[in-house]
């Protein structure tokens, strides 16, 4: 019997895997029927998940952890057996700010840009007009990536600059009206700002952390348990969709599907840019290639590493300015469910890592690692400042971040 799942999503390119699993019949092949609920705010995507309008949701990973820990609302345990993708976001400045501190037309070096921005931020703060950045949500990887980069560049995110929330579709408006000087957002919203001439892309978040965890597919924990066969079928279908998604032969067709009004409702050319890692950085310029801008499939990219959840937990403490709790750390780690991912794919021959946790940012070059299934090779996954994250000692990591 075919099981049915409703998936909530925001119109962003990285909602692609469940959508393509449905459109190309991979879900049907696995015996699961999908329908979609499109929304325009994370608050609504989350509400619909919590109150049963949807069975699963395309969600910013930190929000799944914050919800489990009861930040901002009563705690409700969420579970994610599948990472929808790594990175795929960019930092876009207003043309004025970009002209001052970056090299418009090129992706900047994050260290050099950070240093130039630090000078400008101090000057602006002294003049009583702090630089203001937009992010899509307090509990978003966008916020954490931006803050990680700012802090490592000597800019205190809560003192030297201002960070406000801007809904992705309005980032271009906010840049145009001067409401913000820059933003960290997913595609196609950076490119939309560039196309209108109100923004210049200066950094890809993949330059800050080469393999940064981005969106996840989240379930309520009890729903995940109750619907295990359907969940595992969906995981297999999304792995097939991922193989299809990264195959160059399918890029144009997939961009067209995703651009439809019921999904992203935006220009297929902009979507194709993100899919193919080719971004137009300044209005009218030729696209620039940046490999692995989005990372949706290779190297078991969808595997929910417990260490990713733990890293997100450290950033949540860092920027909510709350103390470490062993109990919360354990609850946060449990949000990522590699056991479910393994169980779904063990019969398929698909790549499965041997470990469920790793030192994040510890791989400097192509490295073979132990696998439970297949030949597992990881390529460079470093943070731009060379720091590594050891999930065995969260407190020491937090302490080292505090010391700067």
């Amino acid at each position, binding site marked *: 019997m075919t099981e049915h799942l409703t998936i909530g999503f925001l119109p962003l390119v990285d909602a692609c895997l469940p959508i393509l699993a449905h459109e190309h019949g991979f879900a049907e092949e696995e015996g699961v029927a999908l329908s979609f609920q499109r*929304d*325009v*705010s*994370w*608050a*609504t995507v989350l*509400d*619909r998940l919590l*109150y049963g*309008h949807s069975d699963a949701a395309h969600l910013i990973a930190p929000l799944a952890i914050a919800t489990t820990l009861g930040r*901002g*609302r*009563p705690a409700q345990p969420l579970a994610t057996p599948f990472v929808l993708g790594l990175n795929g976001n960019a930092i876009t400045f207003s043309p004025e700010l970009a002209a001052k501190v970056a090299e418009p037309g090129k992706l900047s070096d994050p260290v050099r840009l950070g240093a130039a921005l630090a000078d400008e931020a101090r000057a602006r703060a002294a003049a009583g007009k702090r630089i203001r950045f937009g992010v*899509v*949500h*307090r509990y978003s990887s966008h916020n954490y990536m931006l803050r990680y980069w700012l802090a490592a560049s000597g800019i205190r995110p809560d003192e030297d600059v201002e960070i*406000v*929330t*801007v*809904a992705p*579709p*309005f980032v271009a408006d906010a840049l145009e009206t001067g409401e913000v000087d820059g933003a960290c957002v997913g595609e196609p919203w950076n490119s939309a700002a560039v196309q209108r001439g109100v923004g210049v892309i200066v950094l890809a978040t993949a330059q800050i952390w080469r393999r940064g965890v981005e969106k996840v597919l989240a379930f309520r924990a009890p729903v995940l348990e109750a619907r295990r066969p359907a969940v595992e079928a969906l995981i297999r279908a999304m792995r097939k969709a991922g193989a299809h998604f990264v195959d160059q032969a399918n890029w144009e067709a997939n961009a067209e599907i995703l651009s439809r009004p019921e999904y992203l409702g935006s220009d297929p050319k902009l979507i194709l840019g993100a899919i193919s890692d080719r971004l137009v950085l300044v209005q009218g310029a030729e696209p620039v290639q940046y490999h692995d801008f989005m990372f949706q499939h290779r190297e078991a990219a969808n595997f929910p590493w417990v260490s990713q959840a733990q890293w997100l937990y450290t950033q949540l403490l860092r920027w909510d300015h709350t103390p470490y709790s062993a109990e919360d750390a354990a609850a946060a780690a449990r949000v990522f469910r590699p056991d479910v991912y393994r169980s779904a794919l063990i019969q398929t021959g698909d790549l499965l890592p041997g470990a469920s946790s790793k030192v994040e940012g510890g791989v400097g070059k192509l490295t073979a690692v132990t696998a439970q299934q297949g030949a597992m090779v990881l390529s460079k996954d470093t943070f731009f400042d060379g720091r590594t994250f050891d999930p065995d000692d969260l407190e020491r990591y937090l302490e080292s971040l505090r010391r700067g």
Partner: protein
Amino acid sequence: MRIAIVDESASRASIIEEGLAQLPDIELFVLTERRGLLARIEEIAPDVVLIDLGNPSRDVLEEYFTVSRVVARPIAMFVDESDEEAIGASIDAGVSVYVVDGLASNRIRSVLDLAVRRFNAFARLQSDLAEAKGKLAERETVDKAKRILMQSKGVTEPEAYAELRRKAMSSSRRIVDIAEAVVTAHELMGGE
């Protein structure tokens, strides 16, 4: 009690407003503009904020409430365990509610119940309207198909309709489906 209704649909906002106006001792503020929303909210200093689920400003507003909780006026989504059912009903109706801390819960409850009822009433109006529009479109298709048959086969209008109906009955489909097929075929054959 000061209630802010945030809704980009002016017609829905006015239906909610009309409903809530029945309550005693309240002041209502309707905000339909996205620009300057937070400044307006700050100025109004509402005790209750109603915002529709389809509003793209929800994340911005929630962030403002999170910060305001730290600053001065603690505002939370109307959620403690006992409210679960009420919240569920409001989410079903398509509205979310934020309330200043310390407001008597029976008062909030009456606001919420009314808001939910008005949202549902609006949704019913919309689906009635959509249905009426759908019916109108169907009639237009049938008329178009009749004209095509009249021109191409030289039959009268009642004869054209009878033919559509006969075909529909023999293939157990709806008349509008047959009409649509006729119109599509005609277009494909180069008709206008």
